[in-house]
């Protein structure tokens, strides 16, 4: 779910504050204070900050809003419907709406020819077809590129007309006219492909990505590094055949998944035209890619386009689930198009059939892994070929493949590695960002293979893992040193001693019968969090009554980040934030930063440049990255404003007070001085026109970039690369240019990843021999979460991951092509998710390692990655048969059992 979208900062972009967003969240905040006390004291929550709105059915999701709900909007609302390609092997010749009664005809139909005439095309690099073309809608005279590709946008007069017209049009393939058949060629992988080669002997690092640079051993002509990689791969091949080495090969496959977030994509759009002819495009959306969607919406239009808006306003809503599936989706583009062609506000509300046909999918995979093991049971070498099955439109697909490669060797130390990964385009529905981002596929493969190796060697499967688990100071397959404390071995030790694992042989004997099989399986994971180049931003503000507000460009898709953000002010300000305003992009222009992809000379010397300005919202970017930014902003607000104000009240020097001050029950205390309640300090801050809001930007790549910032007359080094402040009585911001910046260490851009959240799972299954049905009867998860912000949220993430992992292992399946989701006929009657009854609700739990580190970890993907392989390994223990392809369905089990 990590995002690698790095748009050029568009300096011409005139963003406006999210009017609807402000209203939505202002209303929530205002309502929440008297009616709902979610806080359980500084740094603790008794409920989610967004919880009250969610249990009372308030309007918080994009699907809840109508034009009449939006202040300042016309009340009349049009409805749009997207027609989508259901065939890819014939030329599209147009649409035929003659079967639609006259009173149900759309007011407007938009085809690709309209977009071309008006100079509308997706910005380069964002939405791209494998053929290199970039048609948003299928052009007449060409074959669709992929199932579900939009063909036309129909705009209907109102809800009643749209409803009735949809009853006629949906599922009627005759409205799309197709002509001559076309031959389809398999296009090349989405570039770039990933090739990892590492060769080490003991402590000698002879070749690695970090030390030698990126390499492609298949390149023609090869560069010097490519040539060296080839030579190293030949030596690795030889290592597989060395004396006393056994090698094991497994071929694994995982299926296409739908994120199946509960709220189908929906939104409102309105192109407002003012008296001067200025056009403002308003969007109401639940999106993970707030910055990206604004940039893309504006970038659609050529500068000379007669309908180009000058301003885009994003009204960002709580998404009803995300899991990566709302990260740079095509939906916002279609909404923007509908808005510019409609004569007023327009709504698109996907139904579930449409969502299946168009929503982002998880890439399928076909992975071949080979592992060399020495006579002591230590892993020596790994090779991997990872073919990730992508769709017909690129959505981070190559970066999903990259993370699969980076995690392809799992949680283990391999001195010799050669792994190739590619995202292969198809005519399938768009596939890309989804929870795990390549990790679930990779961990399924390696964890099943390691289990098979243990069986073959006659070694306990956890003992084998423990023996080979990565430790601090080891290097990853890129040659990057592991700088975090690595607690994989500790997880293995806990799991080894767990009765469910320890007593599995006896339990198998006791629980099996002629009609029932029983098995226990384990899997380990070391999922990375962050993208390897992470830019985050936030603002912390205090009003005159001492109420704290956190503002951010990212959103909470349900993962609890809003609550975590509110709790993260407590460390330095002694109180939780009472409001969290999310999805606000424009206000961070005050940072004065940009991330031009062609950086200037010595870029870190330029205080306006950063390596990554923003990322899409991701659950895994909260606990470490976003919380760092909030805590730094809160700290600066304290050090530069609240503490000096308190000292003015106390009549002492801030320097004298700093070491001994302590927040206690909402008041700042210092020895021998009267406690000062936060509101009293805030009043002084506002009365003295001191700093009342701090906005920061932070950049992480192996380390937090740090710099000196002068605020007032004191310069302090802080782990930030951007800082602006606002005084209480002023509207404008002051940028504090950084100086003496300490950039990431050399080679950091080649680490791949440097942050990991170790996890594991033990699953027990029962299998009905007659039906082949698998029941999960017990499951225990293990996790190193780092410093926990709110344990209930971590547990919820883990419980949800168990459900999603069960679906992945046993239930969920989507064909890729014509009989898959793109045919518009898929819904939850065919796509099976884990239900309550599929879960061992009274026999599942999460064991959290006690934090050693001072920071939290991004765990949303980590808790998912071991679930499916643990189940697959349990099924193998039960049946004696290895299932290397997901999902493991009853049919497959019955076939294997004969």
């Amino acid at each position, binding site marked *: 779910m990590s995002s690698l979208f790095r748009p050029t900062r568009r300096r011409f972009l005139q963003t406006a504050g999210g009017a609807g967003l402000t209203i939505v969240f202002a209303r929530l905040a205002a309502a929440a204070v008297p*009616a709902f006390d*979610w806080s359980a004291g500084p740094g603790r929550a*008794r*409920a*989610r900050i967004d*919880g009250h*709105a*969610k*249990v*009372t*059915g*308030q309007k*918080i*999701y994009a*699907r809840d809003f*109508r034009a009449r*709900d939006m202040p300042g909007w016309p009340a009349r609302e049009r409805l749009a419907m997207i027609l989508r390609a259901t065939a890819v092997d014939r030329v599209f010749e147009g649409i035929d709406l003659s079967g639609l009664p006259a009173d*149900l005809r759309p007011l407007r139909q938009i085809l690709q020819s309209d977009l071309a005439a008006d100079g509308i095309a997706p910005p380069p690099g964002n939405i791209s077809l494998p053929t290199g073309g970039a048609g948003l809608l299928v052009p007449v005279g060409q074959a669709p590129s992929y199932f579900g590709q939009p063909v036309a946008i129909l705009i209907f007069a109102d*809800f009643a007309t749209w*409803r*009735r017209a949809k009853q006629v049009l949906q599922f009627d393939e005759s409205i799309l006219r197709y002509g001559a058949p076309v031959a389809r060629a398999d296009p090349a992988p989405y570039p770039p492909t990933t090739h990892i080669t590492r060769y080490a002997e003991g402590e000698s690092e002879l070749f690695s990505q970090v030390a030698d640079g990126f390499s492609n051993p298949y390149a023609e002509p090869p560069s010097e590094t490519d040539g060296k990689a080839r030579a190293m791969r030949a030596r690795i091949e030889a290592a597989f055949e060395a004396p006393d080495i056994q090698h094991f090969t497994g071929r694994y496959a995982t299926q296409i998944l739908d994120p199946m*977030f*509960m*709220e*189908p994509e929906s939104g409102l759009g309105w192109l407002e035209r003012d008296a001067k002819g200025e056009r403002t495009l308003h969007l109401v959306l639940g999106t993970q890619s707030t910055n990206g969607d604004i940039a893309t919406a504006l970038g659609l239009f050529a500068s000379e386009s007669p309908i180009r808006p000058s301003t885009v306003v994003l009204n960002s809503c709580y*998404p*009803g*689930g*995300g*899991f990566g599936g709302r990260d740079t989706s095509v939906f916002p583009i279609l909404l923007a198009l509908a808005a510019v062609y409609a004569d007023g506000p327009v709504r698109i*509300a996907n*139904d*579930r*059939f449409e969502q299946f046909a168009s929503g982002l999918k998880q890439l399928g995979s076909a992975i071949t892994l080979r592992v060399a093991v020495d006579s002591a049971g230590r892993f020596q070498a790994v090779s991997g070929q990872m073919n990730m099955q992508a769709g017909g439109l690129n959505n981070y697909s190559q970066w999903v493949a990259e993370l699969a490669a980076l995690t392809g060797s799992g949680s283990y130390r391999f001195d010799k590695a050669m792994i190739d990964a590619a995202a292969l385009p198809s005519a399938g529905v768009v596939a890309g960002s989804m929870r795990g981002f390549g990790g679930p596929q990779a961990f399924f493969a390696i964890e099943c293979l390691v289990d098979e190796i243990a069986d073959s060697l006659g070694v306990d499967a956890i003992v084998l893992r423990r023996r080979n688990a990565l430790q601090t100071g080891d290097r990853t397959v890129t040659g990057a040193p592991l700088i975090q404390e690595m607690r994989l071995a500790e997880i293995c030790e806990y799991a080894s001693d767990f009765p469910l694992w320890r007593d599995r042989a006896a339990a198998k004997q006791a629980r099996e019968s002629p009609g029932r099989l029983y098995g226990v399986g384990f899997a380990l994971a070391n999922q990375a969090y962050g993208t390897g180049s992470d830019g985050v931003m936030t603002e912390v503000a205090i009003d005159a009554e001492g109420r704290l507000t956190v503002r951010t460009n990212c959103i909470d*898709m*349900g*993962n609890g980040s809003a609550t975590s953000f509110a709790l993260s002010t407590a460390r330095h300000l002694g109180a939780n934030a009472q409001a969290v305003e999310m999805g606000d992009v424009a206000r961070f222009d005050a940072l004065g930063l940009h991330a031009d992809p062609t950086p200037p000379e010595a870029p870190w010397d330029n205080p306006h440049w950063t390596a990554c300005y923003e990322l899409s919202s991701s659950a895994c970017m909260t606990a470490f990255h976003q919380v760092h930014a909030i805590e730094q902003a809160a700290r600066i607000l304290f050090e530069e404003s609240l503490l000096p104000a308190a000292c003015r009240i106390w009549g002492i020097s801030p320097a004298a007070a700093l070491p001994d001050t302590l927040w206690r029950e909402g008041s700042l205390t210092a020895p021998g001085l009267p406690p000062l309640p936060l509101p009293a300090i805030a009043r002084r801050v506002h009365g003295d026109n001191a700093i009342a809001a701090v906005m920061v930007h932070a950049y992480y790549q192996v380390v937090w970039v740090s710099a000196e910032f002068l605020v007032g007359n004191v310069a302090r080094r802080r782990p930030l690369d951007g800082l602006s402040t606002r005084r209480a009585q002023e509207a404008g911001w002051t940028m504090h240019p950084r100086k003496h910046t300490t950039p990431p260490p050399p080679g950091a851009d080649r680490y791949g990843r440097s942050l990991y959240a170790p996890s594991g799972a033990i699953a027990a299954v029962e299998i009905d021999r007659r039906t082949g049905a698998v029941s999960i009867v017990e499951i225990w998860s293990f996790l190193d979460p780092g410093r926990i912000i709110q344990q*209930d*949220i971590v*547990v*919820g*993430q*883990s*419980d*949800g*991951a*168990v*459900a*999603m992992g069960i679906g992945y292992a046993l239930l969920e399946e989507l064909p890729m092509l014509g009989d898959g989701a793109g045919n518009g006929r898929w*819904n*939850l*009657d065919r796509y099976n*998710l*884990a*239900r*309550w*009854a599929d*879960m061992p*609700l009274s026999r*599942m739990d999460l064991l959290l390692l006690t934090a050693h580190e001072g920071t939290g970890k991004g765990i949303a993907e980590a808790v998912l990655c071991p679930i499916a392989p643990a189940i697959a390994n349990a099924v193998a223990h039960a049946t004696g048969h290895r299932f290397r392809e997901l999902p493991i369905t009853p049919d497959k089990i019955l076939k294997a059992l004969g």
Partner: protein
Amino acid sequence: MVEQFQEIAVTINGTLQRRRVPPDLLLLDWLQEDLGLTGTKFCCGIGVCRACTVAVQWTPGHPSEPVLACSIPAAALDGHAVTTVEGLAGPTGLSALQEAFLTAFAFQCGYCTPGFLMAAHILLARLRAAPIGRDRIDAAIDQACGAHICRCTGYASYRRAIRKVVFAELVP
């Protein structure tokens, strides 16, 4: 094509609503488009996920029953009473179930929450009207909520929250 309309009178969260609606207009669409009550959620639209569950009292004085608002015409509710998630909180605040869902961190994105709340609310009312033995309560909860879909939080905390309220109230 001339659209037909039908007069209906339905009590929604205690307020009588009289409207002319197309006979095939779904209850969910009527709630959301006409009445502005968007707390009842659209997810699958085919009666599988149960996010759109509302409570319908078919007979005065009888316990409400769960009805899937995505799969029933509004006209079928003519003369009956419907409670949606917007109608659960009382004048003194949240219901015990709403409070329990909050403090159990029972949900994440919250989109399925109204459906779970309504199913649990209906169950609680039914058990109040016709108590059952303690040993049958878990099965009753499973029956009432087990078919609902939650994609984020994996059901365990929903179940904990519902059990807490049911056992506290019905099994002192």
